[in-house]
């Protein structure tokens, strides 16, 4: 659940890069996200082993710093002798993929509907906002469960369910920002000059809503990563042999007693991802919202 955000356009005199370099929060976040995205992009080349190859001899191999660990498998191996470091790296792909697709779909759908609702008001607004209210009556995960029930678990279902659950976050923020901007004088001026409404939305309203959208998108990525991990943990997300952090943790749960390292590596990977995104999202919010800045000064 992301908090409602209200952000105004950034003051032009402050450059983004300078603000980022001066923010330990933003930098740490970016670094953590960069690490995960790097893993996702290059896992095929840098992963030391084939992530799905099972070796009988390597079963329950402990990480290298424990007795019996080997340098060939830095983080040890799981119950089927698969290399945990390689699996953790390759699993980043699923998280990054799901997050990018889901947030893009939710962003486009939510922004469009939110802008329409905020700009036109009247029955358009009523219709769209009632749909939002209706969806709010479903707890996030239950909504996903409905999709699973109808379509059966899998990657496509996962993506659809999460996109469907998240568009309302964008719709709500964009609607309220659009309503605020629509009342400003320069929109009035543009209307008087005969600029078409579609053009006003695209050239005047959307650029001003963009900071808010960016903040919501960033924070929603964290939500998606966590939700994907949770659903895969329940066995309702991506299906084997594709590796995902949630699934690795679920698999390792049976061996928690003697081989805790099986769950620790993917667990830390999930944490790095979501902490990184949240830190970076917080930084973005601070950057775009001068009001917040003032209360901190």
């Amino acid at each position: 659940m992301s908090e409602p955000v209200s952000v105004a356009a950034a003051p032009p005199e402050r450059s983004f890069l300078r603000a980022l370099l001066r923010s330990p929060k933003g930098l740490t976040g970016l670094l953590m996200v960069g690490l995960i995205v790097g893993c996702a992009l290059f896992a095929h080349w840098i992963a030391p082993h084939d992530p799905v190859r099972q070796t009988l001899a390597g079963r329950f191999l402990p990480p290298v710093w424990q007795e019996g660990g080997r340098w060939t498998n830095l983080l040890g191996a799981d119950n089927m002798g698969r290399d945990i470091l390689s699996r953790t790296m390759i699993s980043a792909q699923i998280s990054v993929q799901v997050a990018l697709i889901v947030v893009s779909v939710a962003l486009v759908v939510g922004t469009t509907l939110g802008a329409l609702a905020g700009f036109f008001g009247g029955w358009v607004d009523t219709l769209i906002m009632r749909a939002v209210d209706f969806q709010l009556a479903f707890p996030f995960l239950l909504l996903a469960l409905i999709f699973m029930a109808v379509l059966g678990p899998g990657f496509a279902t996962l993506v659809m369910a999460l996109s469907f659950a998240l568009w309302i976050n964008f719709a709500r923020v964009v609607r309220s920002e659009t309503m605020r901007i629509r009342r400003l004088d320069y929109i009035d001026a543009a209307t008087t000059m005969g600029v078409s409404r579609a053009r006003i939305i695209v050239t005047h309203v959307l650029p001003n809503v963009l900071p808010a959208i960016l903040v919501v998108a960033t924070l929603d990525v964290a939500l998606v990563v966590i939700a994907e991990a949770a659903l895969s943990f329940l066995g309702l997300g991506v299906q084997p042999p594709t590796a995902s952090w949630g699934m690795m943790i679920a698999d390792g749960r049976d061996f928690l007693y003697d081989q805790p390292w099986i769950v620790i590596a993917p667990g830390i990977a999930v944490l790095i991802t979501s902490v990184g995104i949240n830190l970076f999202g917080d930084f973005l919010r601070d950057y775009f919202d001068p009001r917040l800045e003032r209360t901190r000064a």
Partner: protein
Amino acid sequence: MLASRLFYAALILVGVTFVVASLVKLVPGDPVDVIAAGNPGMSLADMELLRERMGLTRSVPEQFAAYLGGALQGDLGTSIRQGVPVTQLIGERLPATAELAFWAIVIALALAVPIGILTALKRDTWVDYAGTSFAVLGVSTPGFLLAVMLILWFSIDLRWLPASGYRGSALGALFGDPLAFWSKFRYFILPAISLAFVLVAMNARLIRSAMLEVVEQDYIAFATAKGVPRAVIILRHALRNALLPVVTMVGLQMGGLLSGTVVIETVFAWPGIGRLAVDAIHIRDYPVIQAVVLVSAVLFITINLVVDGLYRLIDPRVRDE
């Protein structure tokens, strides 16, 4: 205002029922074929009967009317796998989920209120920064991961608390047999903390920012000038108003809590409706899935109505509007 809220809630519930009732119709192909594929022993006659029972032989409006009618009379169909009325299954499992959610909220508030006050009072000190870090960690940690880690530390390493299971209501023991309270409550601790963690972080932040806002109000300055002790100002004047946004949030957080129970119950083998739903999806027991979704939506909407009412009760400004 209240009447329109009630009407609105009822309207949403009818909509939810419609979605739930037509859910089986949305399954691509024939859901009975899907079920039969997992149950080789099913005869053609069984399949026909099942189609009938799931409402696949009826049109969507007919099915909706039948489902709504049944739901109003407390009939949500029969579990395909277990052969017992779904209402009975839910009746057996709902108390465990409700009590788990209850303890999670108790823990969340018991921790969030002091943390929120402390971080607001010690603003911009290390206490505040620790609070901020904790908040980021709180919203970033998936409940299931925390649950697994807690089991690792408190059940496996330290052997303090049980790793899974449910031994009956702790609240019930509190009032009936206080000596048995701990033996039941210890099963609640790890799952409730797993659920509460994110709420502690969110609510502590809310209370902190609300406190900061309230402290700057004139009436606080006035009370200080009047010589009211600081502790009294904080607890009686400031906190009361700072808690308002939290009351609204607790209602909305119930949605997250219900979602959370789905996962946490699976980790801790908790016999609640969340695990019921996950199990039902794995074996495609549609009537059970339908019922869990409907019951959760009813709960969520009712709780938010109640919270809304409470808010009016606490905050006279809203009441008078």
